[in-house]
């Protein structure tokens, strides 16, 4: 398949995904229409009686057939208008936009940590292949991938914040306090990257072009880092990108445990309070980000890796 056809196919593929996401979010807004009418009435200082509810429902178009409601909802959604939060009565979009930079910071720092750790330990492991450092790294990376991040979060909170007092228990979302939650999120990821990169690097170190590099007088380290590493990291690029997508969606558990005021914690709190407009906006925005990010990564990847077989 040519690259161009692949790109077109891949772009067409996101349409059903965006449609599913929009149906889910519309389903939520449909489920919450009673409360929306009530809150509109109250915000106008009126009493919700059957007559006023009927009037407002008509005004908001909630009495029309479902598919017409879907399209008018879609029109608002495209303009990022998701109504007001039940709790704060502020526009949902503003609330999310306010918190997104925190999630972005956490996602970027986590990704940076996990790539650095992953590459570092993979190189170390391959350099000492079959010797103690390699064994230790393999055991630790198996263990690292086996600890759920929220368990790790409690452990770090207990050790570094409560006992050693390196960090405050309540992060207050200050940039300098990003280290603890980022470390928590990056450990399972680094463990996975270490294992993937290590396996690829071992295969590559046996290949002819590395032998050539050695033959022309490069040391083992130079051959590995200058020639081997790039190709060993390449297969992990899609995984790193897709994990960045998950991180940008905000981690409910980690943000909540460290009181990191990102969109993950916001949604966690909104689920508890049954604040449906927030959940609705979150689903649309996060799935759109996630789907587009994956699309971009896949497209970049086929241009990065000349050996790729397109399916």
């Amino acid at each position, binding site marked *: 398949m040519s690259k161009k056809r692949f790109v077109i196919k891949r772009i067409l593929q996101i349409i059903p995904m965006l449609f599913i996401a929009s149906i*889910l979010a519309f*389903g939520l807004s449909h*489920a919450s229409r009673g409360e929306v009418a009530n809150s509109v009435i109250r915000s106008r200082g009126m009493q919700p009686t059957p007559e006023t509810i009927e009037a407002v429902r008509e005004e908001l178009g909630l009495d029309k057939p479902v598919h017409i409601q879907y399209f008018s909802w879609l029109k608002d959604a495209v303009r990022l208008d998701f109504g007001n939060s039940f709790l704060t009565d502020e526009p949902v979009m503003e609330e999310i936009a306010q918190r997104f930079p925190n999630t972005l910071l956490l996602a970027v720092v986590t990704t940076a940590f996990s790539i650095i750790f992953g590459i570092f330990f993979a190189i170390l492991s391959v350099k000492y292949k079959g010797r103690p450092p390699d064994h230790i790294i393999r055991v630790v990376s*198996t263990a690292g991938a086996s600890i*759920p991040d929220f368990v790790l979060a*409690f452990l770090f909170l207990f050790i570094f914040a409560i006992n050693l007092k390196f960090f405050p228990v309540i992060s207050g979302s200050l940039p300098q306090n990003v280290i603890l939650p980022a470390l928590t999120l990056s450990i*399972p990821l680094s463990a996975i990257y270490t294992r993937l990169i290590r396996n690829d690097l071992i295969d590559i170190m046996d290949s002819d072009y590395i032998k050539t590099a050695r033959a022309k007088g490069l040391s083992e380290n130079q051959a590995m880092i200058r020639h081997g590493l790039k190709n060993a990291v390449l297969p992990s690029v899609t995984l790193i990108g897709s994990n960045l997508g998950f*991180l940008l969606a905000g981690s409910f558990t980690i943000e909540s445990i460290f009181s990191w005021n990102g969109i993950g914690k916001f949604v966690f709190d909104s689920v508890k309070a049954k604040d449906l407009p927030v959940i609705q906006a979150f689903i649309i925005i996060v799935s759109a980000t996630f789907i587009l990010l994956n699309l971009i990564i896949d497209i970049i990847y086929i241009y990065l890796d000349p050996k790729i077989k397109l399916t």
Partner: protein
Amino acid sequence: MFRKQVLTDKNIEDMKNNALDSRSSFLKRTIHNLKSNKPALIGGMVLLALIVIGFAAPLLAPHDPLEVETSNRLLSPSLQYPLGTDHMGRCILSRLMYATRTSLITALIILAGNLAIGIPLGLIAGYVGGKIDNLIMRVADIALTFPSSLILLAVIGIFGTNVIYMILVLTFLWWAPYARILRSLVIKLKEQDFVMAAEAAGRSKTYIAFKHIGLCSISPVIVLATLKISSIIMHVASYSFIGIGTQAPNADWGVMLSESREFIFTRPILIAWPAIVIVIVVLCLNIFGEGLKDALLPNTRMNANSSYKGD
């Protein structure tokens, strides 16, 4: 989309021969191979013990896990309460046993659902090919990339909180890896001599599918399922922790963690117990799964960590 092609012709021959030459001793040989792998053996035994404890919880547990006794709040370990009591005076040991039971049963239901959907769809996609294959694999792509947490949030927002929704969402999202592996096996097998011979000998497609493909797919499916179940367990625990999975007061690791959260300063041990059990279970599953992979599929690369295991 760009996953490494893990199945070579040689692997398939191996699997076929492995399964055929000693069908009766398949289990015996697997156990023999595992025996030489100490960590996997220990992991498997610990796992077995925990499974027994979980399923026999009603017989073994010293107390009713839901029995609230406010006069016994936060007791230290004693003969009557071997691990002490929690903030509502419930026996921690009994709760842990029942939590193990709940989590294992939930995870097994989800896994069974994934297999029941993924295996037939993979077989059909591989065998029939063409448009149907294309459709099934596109749906699989969507199911693989969509974050389960988003769909679960929407479903719960619309229908209310119930553990059933978590089971359904994960069942209908995570069948794709099995479909993929079955499909690629079938496509490879169709070209193999023994399948063509069987076809030439007039065997029906159903017979071939069940006998030959069944034999070859046992090992990869078992290995993949073992590696995947740890990720199911972690997700279930984290969903229960945020309150969109198993609901309090039912005993579940995630529920126990979220109930103990506020005691991190005063009684950190309350958090430690469920955390320790989750880590042991997931670690043993991963070590055992890796061992099983080495025993059953010595020359194949398979990675259960192809997607992020956070939220």
